[in-house]
């Protein structure tokens, strides 16, 4: 991991990958701690449409409502690597990420040829 990254450009809104390289959401927001005068520290990554509410005014609230997803908090210690994408240490399922795909998959699999 490089020594320093620009949080706005180098981390926020980047693609999340689980340990197997599965795409499982984006870095929708960051939880940053530290009072006035203290060094600020990223403590967690926030993922899920629920986070969108706070990011884009009424359009964000509508998007969050349409996507109907919750919010997942991933402690910063779970991040394995930050490069082009943000790689996590465990599988998506262990964090509760990628649930939309996991719930939908059984229905898709009912149609022949879904695993060509």
């Amino acid at each position, binding site marked *: 991991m490089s020594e320093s990254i620009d949080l706005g450009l180098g981390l926020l*809104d980047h693609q999340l990958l689980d340990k197997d390289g599965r795409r499982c959401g984006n870095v929708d927001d960051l939880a940053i701690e530290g009072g006035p005068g203290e060094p600020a520290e990223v403590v967690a990554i926030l993922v899920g449409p629920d986070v969108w509410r706070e990011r884009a005014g009424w359009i964000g609230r509508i*998007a969050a409502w349409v996507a109907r997803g919750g919010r997942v908090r991933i402690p910063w210690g779970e991040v394995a690597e930050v490069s082009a994408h943000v790689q996590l240490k465990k599988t998506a399922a262990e964090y509760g990420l990628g649930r939309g795909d996991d719930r939908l998959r059984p229905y898709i699999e009912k149609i022949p040829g879904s695993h060509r």
Partner: protein
Amino acid sequence: MNKIFGVALGILAAIGGFVDIGDLVFNVAAGATFGYQLLWVVVIGVVGIITYSEMCGRVSAVSQKAVFDAVRERVGFKAGLITLIAAEIVNAMTLTAEIGGVAICLQLLSGLPYRLLIVLAAIVLAIVVWIVNFDWIERIFGYGGLCLLVFAVAAVKLHPDWGAVGHGFVPHVDTGNKLLYGYFAIGLLGAAMTPYEVYFYSSGAVEEGWTVKDLGLNRLNAIVGYGLGGFLSFALMIVGGALFLGKGIDPATLGSIAMGAEVPLGQIGLLLALIGILFAVAGASIDTLFSGAYDLAQFCGFEWGRHKSPAGAPRFTLTWIVLLILAMLAVMTGVDAVKLTEFAVIFSVVALPLTYLPILLVANDKAYMGNYANGRLANVLGILYLVIIMIVALTAIPLMLLTNLGQG
């Protein structure tokens, strides 16, 4: 040798895949209205799409990011969301127009009822996308689209005034109706630079795992594929000009566009033209279908890929199925596919800066791109085109209204 053969085949498929319903409609209509005068605008459009496709392919190869990854990371969530909404609306309009085009071609070929053919077209497209490996989709529709080369033969057979054709490549305005001329110029630029092409192209580059080793291939693909595709656009406009100009005929249907090959070449010309249009427009339907799903998946971060099985990327699969059904229902309302094409192209022009600005920013960003950031040529062209795009975006809707969709 095998590699060269592969590249050649890819380029052939790209030529067949370049032309979509927007190019067909605007090039022939521009020819019918202004003869060969607007050929120079096609050149500008083709250089523009080459410039930005090369940039997108390079960003994908270097950073493994497709366009909508880059858009959101670079301009942030809110501007990214607005871009996404604009892109999805334009994409859905384009998809609807393309599927309408498929149904019209099928009707001209078979004589069966239009509404039945819309449903049939949607079902066949869904089955093809579901079961056929994408490499084969690309080949089938790309090579089928090559039948459009019949328009190049037709253009020669119609014995156009080659001096006038040559003069058309020199930028000039030689008409009393400057508004209408401007409207067609904007439409031609929009048709050549349709944003779904770069979404699709960059996502493919990420999926195929391009690295900096593929940058040469990227440049070759962009220049030769789009360049030769532009050649087809010239042919369409020349046919439109030679056949329809001054005859008071407005080629407002795909059937009249196909007539452009029938008049000089007879039945076989008509048949090749219709098959070419069918494959080109059906291929573009699949491209737009995937583009809509790519954009949403990349913005939201869920799994995507045209090379994945349907179950390998469930929400991506659901997205394209829903888009296909919506487009099918929209065509069923009886909306005129050619009119809708004009709307789709003009609205896509308005959305162009939102797509191309983030790409230009990312391609210049040393943090992403390292030594592969834009060089001077890419930047001069990139900025020049961004300025052109912005002017065009601001004037597109007023011109559309003032000219009553090009009716004068």
